[in-house]
């Protein structure tokens, strides 16, 4: 029996389990208390002081996000004192915030801006502080001047992703958020997962804007093809006021075609190909007893393992991610079919992910002799591109992907969510090799009569736990699927940003439903049945894990001590010589 307490909020009485905060209690009454720093279970630090309330019998105004409801507590959430304090707080925040809303990437999608408008905050005196340098070193960009020190990014980076790249530095009015010594993210072991962007209430964190490069390609002479990741169609509609959970696949294809892409292809096609390659790699490793095999399609995750557990990269699947397989094939296989040279084909990919921008830029990603993927846009950037072009996604008629790289199976779309890669592989292998691979009703997998233990995790914090177990020898998994973002790509760092945590969770659920629906409605279930994939093998690659496959679709990873200049490796080196 839960211990209940009775509390009165703005005259309404209710009973809540003890330990419930006043903020949560108010929410139950439909009251939205403004807040800029709180993230349930992740960042409960009471720092922004926007959510202050008046409590009878208390002199000060406590922050409701960290105030547990107590028996007999009488709270007012919108008294004049409270509203004045919130307004003054906003004024103070704005006195340090650059007034650059017109050019800010988050304009009209900024929690601070909308709150300031709600409160009709007047122009406040500016506090002069030194401008801090911008970090534009990589796919994630930081403008510390816009930062309001809510520390959500710090909390997500530490609590959820276990990377702690960002932290609070200095003290008092000089406090700012950044990597150690305000290093560029490029030099700070950042995985570019982009989860920090998702929680930033203002425009202090954003992805590198590559829309101009896409316009340049579209207005140029080259043959420009686009690929779209499975998770985009689950969320793009949100940017155009469609209800969360609207599948916009057909409209998205139409919109891309209107933008002027010569071909609109689907990353699902190479997701099927990944299933084929990685599935066969798995069977080979089972035979060699060289396990566990860990998936490699999430570039944030790959960078994580390279940065933090370089000694374990040998467990990574050698398969490139679907994005990079696509790029390599578009400039070889497809170019040949279309009668073009690799140089004449340009590839743009639309990804729910900020780390994909980094992946496309990795030096080794030029199997075609050219940069395999030329430009990567996030879901948000695609929405901006469409708006610039005056295209209202909501009003378009459905269209179909182009052949051949637009065909896909139900398995491939599962890549858009956590657990999908493992499920797609198990499904495909069991259909393709029913005598060797069996999947039980409960999802358990048997290979050659022996159970294949499959573990699925998402978020880098979870990934770290698994890797620690692998290293300690306490992990008995044979096949591990890891995605960097909690819940997988539907929650990627490049997806539409949502303020409210509850709403964000609801949207994730809705996006996931789209994936399940698409899988359910697919004409073919397993990747091996994809006729375009079959054709690709027959006409170009030969068979899975063929030499040509290796050349185009597989890769290698940075290993321990490959970069002898980093302080860590120097430290390790000098230590080993000292011992």
């Amino acid at each position, binding site marked *: 029996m839960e211990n209940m307490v009775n509390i009165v909020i703005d005259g309404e009485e209710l009973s809540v389990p003890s330990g419930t905060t006043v903020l949560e209690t108010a929410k139950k009454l439909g009251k939205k208390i403004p807040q800029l720093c709180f993230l349930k279970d992740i960042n409960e630090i009471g720092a922004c002081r926007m959510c202050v309330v008046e409590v009878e019998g208390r002199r*000060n105004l406590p922050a409701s996000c960290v105030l547990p409801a107590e028996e007999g507590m009488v709270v007012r959430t919108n008294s004049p004192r409270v509203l004045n304090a919130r307004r003054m707080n906003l004024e103070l925040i704005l006195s340090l915030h650059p007034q650059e809303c017109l050019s800010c990437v988050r304009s009209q999608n900024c929690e601070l801006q909308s709150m300031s408008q709600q409160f009709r905050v007047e122009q406040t005196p500016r506090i002069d502080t030194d401008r801090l340098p911008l970090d534009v070193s990589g796919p994630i960009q930081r403008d510390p001047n816009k930062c309001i020190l809510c520390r959500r990014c710090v909390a997500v980076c530490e609590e959820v992703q276990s990377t702690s790249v960002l932290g609070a530095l200095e003290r008092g009015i000089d406090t700012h958020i950044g990597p150690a010594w305000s290093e560029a993210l490029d030099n700070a072991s950042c995985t570019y997962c982009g989860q920090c962007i998702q929680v930033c209430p203002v425009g202090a964190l954003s992805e590198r804007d590559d829309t101009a490069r896409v316009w340049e390609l579209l207005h140029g002479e080259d043959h420009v093809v686009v690929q779209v990741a499975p998770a985009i169609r689950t969320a793009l509609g949100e940017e155009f006021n469609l209800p969360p959970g609207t599948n916009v696949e057909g409209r998205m294809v139409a919109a891309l075609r209107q933008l002027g892409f010569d071909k609109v292809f689907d990353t699902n096609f190479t997701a099927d190909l990944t299933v084929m390659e990685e599935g066969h790699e798995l069977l080979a490793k089972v035979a060699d007893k060289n396990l566990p095999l860990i998936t490699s399609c999430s570039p944030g995750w790959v960078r994580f393992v390279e940065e933090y557990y370089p000694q374990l990269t040998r467990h990574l699947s050698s398969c490139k991610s679907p994005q990079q397989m696509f790029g390599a094939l578009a400039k070889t296989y497809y170019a040949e079919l279309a009668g073009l040279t690799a140089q004449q084909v340009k590839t743009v990919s639309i990804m729910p992910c900020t780390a994909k921008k980094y992946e496309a830029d990795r030096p080794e990603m030029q199997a075609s002799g050219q940069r395999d993927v030329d430009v990567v846009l996030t879901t948000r950037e695609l929405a901006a591109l469409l708006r610039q072009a005056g295209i209202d996604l909501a009003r378009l008629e459905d269209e179909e992907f182009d052949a051949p790289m637009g065909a896909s199976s139900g398995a491939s779309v599962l890549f858009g969510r956590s657990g999908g890669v493992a499920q797609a592989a198990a499904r495909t292998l069991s259909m393709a090799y029913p005598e060797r691979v069996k999947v039980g009703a409960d999802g358990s997998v048997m290979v050659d009569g022996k159970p294949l233990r499959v573990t699925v995790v998402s978020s880098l914090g979870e990934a770290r736990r698994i890797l620690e177990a692998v290293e300690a020898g306490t992990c008995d998994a044979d096949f591990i699927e890891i995605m960097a973002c909690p819940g997988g790509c539907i929650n990627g760092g490049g997806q539409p940003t949502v303020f409210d945590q509850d709403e964000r969770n609801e949207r994730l659920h809705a996006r996931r439903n789209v994936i399940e629906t698409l899988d359910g409605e697919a004409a073919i279930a397993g990747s091996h049945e994809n006729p375009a994939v079959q054709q690709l093998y027959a006409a170009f690659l030969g068979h899975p894990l063929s030499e040509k496959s290796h050349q185009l679709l597989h890769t290698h990873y940075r290993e321990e001590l490959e970069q002898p200049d980093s302080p860590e490796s120097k430290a390790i080196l000098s230590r080993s010589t000292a011992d």
Partner: protein
Amino acid sequence: MYRAHVLVCAGAGCVSSRSRDVRDELVKILGERDISEEVRVIETGCIGTCDLGPVMIVYPEGVFYQKLGLGDVAQIVDEHLIRGRVVERLLYRAPLTEIVTEKMRDLEFFRRQYRIALRNTGVIDPESIEEYIARDGYMALGTVLDGMTPDQVIQEITASGLRGRGGGGFPTGRKWDFAAQAPVGQKYVVCNADEGDPGAFMDRSIIEGDPHSIIEAMAIAGYAIGADQGYVYVRAEYPLAVERFQLALQQAREYGFLGSAILGTDFHFDLDVRVGAGAFVCGEETALLNSIEGNRGEPRPRPPFPAVAGLWGRPTIINNVETYANVPPIIQHGAKWFSKIGTEASRGTKVFAMAGNINNTGLVEVPMGTTLRELIYDIGGGIPGNKRFKAAQTGGPSGGCLTEDHLDTPMDYDTLLELGSMMGSGGLIVMDEDTCMVDIARFFLDFTRDESCGKCNPCRIGTTRMLSILERLVSGEGQQGDIEELEDLAVFIQETSLCGLGQSAPNPVLSTLKNFRSEYEAHIRERRCPAGHCRALISYTIVAETCIGCGICARHCPSNAIVGERRNPYSIVTELCTKCGVCLQECPVQAIQKR
């Protein structure tokens, strides 16, 4: 057996006045006169009369020698220690009355004191556990372990009425009780020795002068709440305190007062020292815990309170040094004895650190409820240079000021709060008529803004805004509406800040506004600093009629801003004048005017 004992103060103040050299000289001369066997030299902690250092007390007579130079030592040895004649020249002479006092106990400074927390400081050699034991040290711990239940210990402390001496004045017994009520398991006892309040140095003196009393008290606290580990968090600015405390820990372990099976019982307890790293906010208890854990010293939201979830999430009590110093005497003499001292709601004594514009600076311990007048005039000997008393700041940057009108109010927790100030840790900064209260408010805001941890908006940005207004005022650029804006900001910061630092940061402004509003107004409306302190608002001129043309001012002026010919009136070139005031001091005929 020694026929005489000589106590040489080795408190931080006296050490900076070269008391160590005086001690060495004494030892050397005693050797030369071949009486080292007869006279024992003891280095003590702070005696309290910091501005009289180096000081020496010769027993058995208890003669108090002060402001000693190296050349004075031989005379004390030859005259006093060999011939038995007091050296009158080196005795204390009251600044106003010129009355000479021979014995330490007759000094007004000591006569009115009631020493509980400071019972041993300045009396014993802090580096000797034997001396502590000789003065009933570790008796209280013995009493507790010998026959009291943890509950009885807490009851005794509660009954004594002891309240936290670090600032808030929370009842110590209740705090211990909360932690004792928490489920059995790992618990911690913490001593807050992060004495950050500028102008307060009692914690430093106690740790430097009587470290064992803290060890004993913390062991008692550990027994009472069921903790086996304690931490003492000392400021990095106090290296001597750290050194002495560590030595004391080692001795206590050797004597079996710390470690396992203390005094043959099954009680285990040990202590560790943690050195701060320069952050005032770490005096706030949750910030202090974060710092001990190795993190940035940022406060945590409360609840949960440390007694429920403190260090590493475990139940923890945090008390200040002076609070702990009161614990062994309470156990030894009983709650009844203690509760008879002081006032109804503020039992016992309080140590004050008197500094600023006061004749007798130093540490004094008086019963709660002693008036400000007694402190400043009777014990402190009044204001130097016969200047007028203007205000006294209590509670440091978190407190407020008391004025002439408050001279007869009793100093206790609740009265001070009512007056818009607070007890704080007991710093008492006395200010004379030359002090500008707007500038003092600016000084404190500058301090809190600098020491704000930066976590919550109201404190981080609010104090910055308040400071910029105050800076405007003292530089003569005040605007209409500044006072009102200061007040709005002050109330906002008080109401919404995360921790005590922010919540109390505006106090110095509000209290000076309350008591000296006209000074603020003069800065804004008349562009005038009534105390003649704010440089931007004053100017120096030479009154031609008075000037005798001696040229002394021109010779002393560091910026060559005074021009003229001898025997004719000189004048000041305003553009060059840096308003340093040297000319005013040097002029033999008071021809320089400051406006």
